[in-house]
């Protein structure tokens, strides 16, 4: 009877595609919306992820999240270097600076100053130019999103803005900066352009302040547990020291607790799930209702409850599997399209696919359960009505 169940389902193509489309759309909602939310959350700590080399981030104890750098004295760097178990420690400047474009427009950008000697913390993927070119006079590297977006060369009337190119000149706080490279960097939460330069040059671009050191990036010696070195830095210097994962978590928690993004976007995700569940359940239940008379015929003709249960379960699993596959496929296409875009993007990982597939399975099984209940309660005598 399984083949009969499948033919009942697949035979009416209009209805079948209706069910599949409904489940595919529901799946798409259930994967895409959380995917975008995860992507937004991952942006909160993308800078920490990009600066992959150090084990430990040392900062002022008042720092609440990665964009909230509280400047320290340069002398703190030497204190950290003196802590037992530290392999190396390098300075990092991170601050917002105003960049003047050709038409005089000012764009707030994220200026990153890398250790002059090692350039640790620089972008991993260079699209144009070389990281080492930062050692050239007035050199800066701009991230791709900034170069093609907010820092793009202003358009002449009737023309589109042109992406920033190697060799172009910018003004950072009235000081000259020459673009020597374009790099790929993780999109940040605030979506500001990212400009890399050396630490020394960054301090000259920055407005004159007594303290300019944002972070100290530390590598622990191979034989020293990171947690021990972190604790020792805290004890010996009085500064805050966190592993990269701890710093990511702190940044994430701060954004989560101090913005309404989770409430707003989370609401959309929950509504998406409920709508998806309701649509999926309803359309499958309607399919069973449409076929109720035929199930009664089977029942009258000797089909046992177990047989009918298994037929409906098979139908539910098939539409769930195909619908979810189409929905996940469409979401994957969306993710691929938006992957390279600086604006809207989504994260599609196996955890999300597994979670949403379980959700769809639960929904179709629930719909099947309600349908089965309806069929089992059905009096076969209705066949004569």
């Amino acid at each position, binding site marked *: *009877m399984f*083949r*009969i169940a499948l*033919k*009942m389902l*697949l*035979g*009416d193509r209009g209805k079948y595609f209706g069910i599949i489309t409904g489940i595919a759309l529901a799946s798409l909602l259930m994967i895409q919306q959380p995917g975008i939310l995860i992507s937004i959350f991952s942006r909160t700590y993308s800078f920490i992820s990009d600066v992959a080399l150090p084990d430990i981030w040392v900062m002022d104890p008042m720092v609440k999240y990665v964009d909230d750098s509280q400047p320290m004295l340069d002398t703190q760097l030497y204190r950290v270097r003196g802590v037992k178990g530290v392999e190396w420690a390098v300075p990092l400047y991170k601050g917002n600076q105003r960049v003047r474009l050709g038409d005089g427009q000012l764009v707030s950008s994220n200026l990153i100053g890398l250790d002059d000697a090692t350039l640790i913390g620089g972008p991993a993927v260079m699209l144009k130019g070389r990281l080492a070119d930062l050692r050239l006079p007035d050199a800066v590297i701009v991230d791709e999103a900034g170069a093609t977006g907010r820092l793009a060369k202003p358009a002449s009337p009737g023309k589109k803005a042109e992406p920033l190119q190697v060799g172009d000149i910018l003004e950072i706080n009235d000081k000259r900066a020459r673009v020597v490279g374009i790099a790929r960097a993780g999109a940040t939460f605030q979506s500001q352009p990212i400009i890399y330069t050396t630490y020394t040059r960054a301090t000259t671009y920055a407005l004159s302040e007594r303290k300019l050191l944002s972070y100290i990036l530390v590598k622990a010696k191979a034989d020293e547990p990171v947690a021990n070195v972190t604790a020792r830095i805290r004890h010996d210097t009085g500064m805050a020291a966190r592993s990269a994962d701890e710093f990511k978590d702190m940044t994430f928690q701060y954004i989560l607790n101090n913005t309404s993004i989770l409430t707003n976007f989370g609401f959309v995700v929950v509504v998406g799930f409920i709508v998806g569940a309701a649509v999926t359940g309803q359309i499958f239940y309607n399919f069973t209702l449409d076929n109720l*008379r*035929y199930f009664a*015929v*089977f*029942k*009258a*003709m*000797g*089909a*046992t*409850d*177990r*047989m009918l249960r298994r037929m409906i379960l098979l139908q539910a699993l098939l539409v769930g599997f195909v619908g979810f596959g189409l929905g996940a496929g469409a979401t994957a296409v969306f993710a691929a399209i938006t992957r390279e875009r600086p604006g809207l993007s989504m994260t599609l990982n196996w955890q999300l696919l597994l979670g949403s597939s379980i959700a769809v399975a639960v929904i179709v099984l629930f719909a099947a359960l309600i349908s089965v209940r309806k069929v089992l309660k059905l*009096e*076969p*005598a209705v*066949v*004569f*009505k």
Partner: protein
Amino acid sequence: MNGPASAVQCKGVIKRYGSGEAEVLALRGIDLEVRMGELLMLVGPSGCGKTTLISVIAGILDQDEGECLLFGQDITRLPADERTRYRGQAIGFVFQSFNLIPTLTAAENVAIPMLINGMPFESAVAEARSRLRDVQLEGREDALPTQLSGGQQQRVAIARAIVHRPRLVVCDEPTSALDGETGHKVMQVLKNVAVGSDRALVIVTHDARIYEFADRIARMEDGRIVSVEQAERGTKENVP
């Protein structure tokens, strides 16, 4: 070993619908025998209980009082699944509105009772094709119900009712949706394939044009059998 002489033996069957003031007595103490090898027609005005009675006879509706033996067995005493399986093997159904599955071909529709009884799909469809030839539908085996005329659909339904060689076939208004000539042909087919010495056929009908096919005609009124006539001889039997 001799089997029972009666296909169906109902005694004092009472069936109620609803309760309290809304209670309706659909069957008011039915005594009826359907003999082996006969075609019995149940006739009577709408609402007199004909459909309720064949539902009880076929084991798809429980009576409230009395007993209805099917080939000497009271199937209401069987466990639910066993009773369902018994029904699947011993009874065939023909419905007024055919109840063919619209997404299945004629052969697949006919194969359903055998599939329910556990026969593999290919064998069941092969047997179904052979049965469709018995009801003069050769060449239409792969047609969907919507591609068949009303008469052809009813013949598919008849083939489905007999394909697993049930001992009792119950039909509800099998010709009411058909014109006179088609109805006549359908009845001819039904009588040829469903009636035999070890089997019986019960037909509920309003259609006086097909009375000639009956061996006996039981008339019902207001939940009771008021007369049972030998159709060909036209003699009335005593009805208590």
